[in-house]
């Protein structure tokens, strides 16, 4: 028999029996990051493809949400800090090797873009809203326009942004990719946890993030063409995700003991059901099937697969954050 035990009492909260210092806030934060990245990715790509007017929701409207999302993300990040009063320390330096540092800076940059992008489309947005019979937000659009007229600096910024929108779109594309990759590789940077320490996790998170972005557009767009396009993209992304997941599990199974243990969490261990049945079943396979049926002409509410993908994406991050912390090297 082998015994490896902690002989002194070390009841430090969140350290034993396994590290548990990150909870839902970090998982939601990662979800939001991925979602925002996905939305911005589609907005910029289709803008650059010259489809701004054809796909107004994707390019002009959806990015409105990213600003809110990114702000919530930043707030969650701060909320999760244990030494909150020192949060400004994050912005005194940029640490090239620290994904946290990357993330903090990227979120700030992305938040600026995601604020300016919709502002630069304020007339189109108002038109879009009116078209859909939404007048309630007129006060806000009017207020924003007033600001733009009254003050020099906002006017200058927005006019400049409009003028160089293509350049801005390239930059935004770049940062949204960074954001997507960042939310993906954040966990894999913590290689003290075998589950996180694998090369597929990053791409998997990126694909999953983009997939939630497409689901988001699919869900809220009123444009059938847009929705169908996004649905097609989403199906492809889901297929890639499933491929990555299987690949990741096989990789861990083939690894050293600590990695086998990590895989076991999903192959018989405590996360088996929630991962395979709830996440993979209801968050990937079912929406995939629903989308296939929709393409074949069955009447399926587009919100259904979209919401399943979104909830699945959130669940996936919660599971990975929790299971990753359980997966540790032995004492």
């Amino acid at each position, binding site marked *: *028999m082998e*015994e490896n035990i902690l002989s*002194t009492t070390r009841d430090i909260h969140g350290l034993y029996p396994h*590290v548990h210092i990150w909870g839902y806030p970090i998982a939601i934060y990662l979800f939001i990051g991925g979602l925002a990245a996905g939305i911005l990715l589609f907005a910029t790509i289709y803008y650059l493809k010259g489809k701004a007017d054809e796909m107004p929701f994707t390019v002009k409207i959806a990015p409105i949400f990213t600003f809110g999302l990114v702000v919530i993300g930043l707030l969650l990040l701060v909320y999760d800090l*244990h030494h909150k009063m020192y949060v400004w320390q994050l912005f005194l330096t940029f640490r090239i090797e*620290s994904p946290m540092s990357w993330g903090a800076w990227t979120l700030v940059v992305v938040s600026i873009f995601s604020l300016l992008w919709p502002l630069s489309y304020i007339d189109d947005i108002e038109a879009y809203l009116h078209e859909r019979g939404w007048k309630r937000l007129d006060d806000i659009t009017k207020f924003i326009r007033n600001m733009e007229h009254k003050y020099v600096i906002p006017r200058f910024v927005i006019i400049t942004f409009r003028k160089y929108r293509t350049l801005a779109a390239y930059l935004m594309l770049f940062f949204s990719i960074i954001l997507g990759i960042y939310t993906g590789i954040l966990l894999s940077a913590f290689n003290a946890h075998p589950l996180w320490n694998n090369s597929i996790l990053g791409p998997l998170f990126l694909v999953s993030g983009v997939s939630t972005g497409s689901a988001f557009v699919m869900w809220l767009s009123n444009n059938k063409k847009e929705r169908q396009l996004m649905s097609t993209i989403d199906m492809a992304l889901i297929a890639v995700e499933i491929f990555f997941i299987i690949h990741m599990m096989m990789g861990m199974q083939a690894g050293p003991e*600590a990695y086998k243990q990590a895989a076991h969490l999903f192959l018989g261990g405590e996360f088996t059901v929630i991962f395979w049945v709830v996440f993979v079943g209801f968050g990937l396979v079912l929406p995939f099937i629903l989308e296939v049926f929709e393409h074949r002409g069955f009447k399926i509410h587009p919100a259904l697969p979209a919401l399943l993908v979104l909830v699945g994406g959130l669940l996936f991050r919660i599971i990975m954050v929790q299971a990753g912390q359980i997966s540790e090297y032995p004492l």
Partner: protein
Amino acid sequence: MRYAMAIEVNKCVGCADCVVACQTENNVPIGYSRDWIVERVSGTYPDIFLHFESQRCNHCEDTPCVRTCPTGASFIDVGGIVKVTHDECIGCGACIESCPYDARYFHPDGYVDKCTFCDHRVKEGMDPACVSVCPTYCMHFGDLDDPDSDISKLLKKRENFTLLPEAGTAPQIFYLK
């Protein structure tokens, strides 16, 4: 300079004097600890093998904790001592998540705390508190870059191991068999 520790597991009795000495020396709050003891038993009665390991931050040469710190609060000080500047730490936990040894914890005041190799004592030419209290004299502290230091000689002479070499952190705490 390259500070390191060598601990003779053939003498350690797992008494935890090193743990409580660290607590009083470094004002580690009750309920927390910078060092701890692991007991390893193998075999079947009456052919059994047992040893204790006094563990703490390994002051790794390859430091995932410093690498992942977004503010630079975690840094490598003179002699390879891995430290945390409390006033720069935002308490994000990145370093805790990246240490394979669970060597770091959130101090109740919010910042991350860990073993400092008692650099305040080392500066004065003393041994760290845990080393200087150990009743079995099984702990040794010194400079690996100095070939004449006790620790360099011990490591040359005796078979030794480090914790979780597979984690690739190049620990600077060596256990002598």
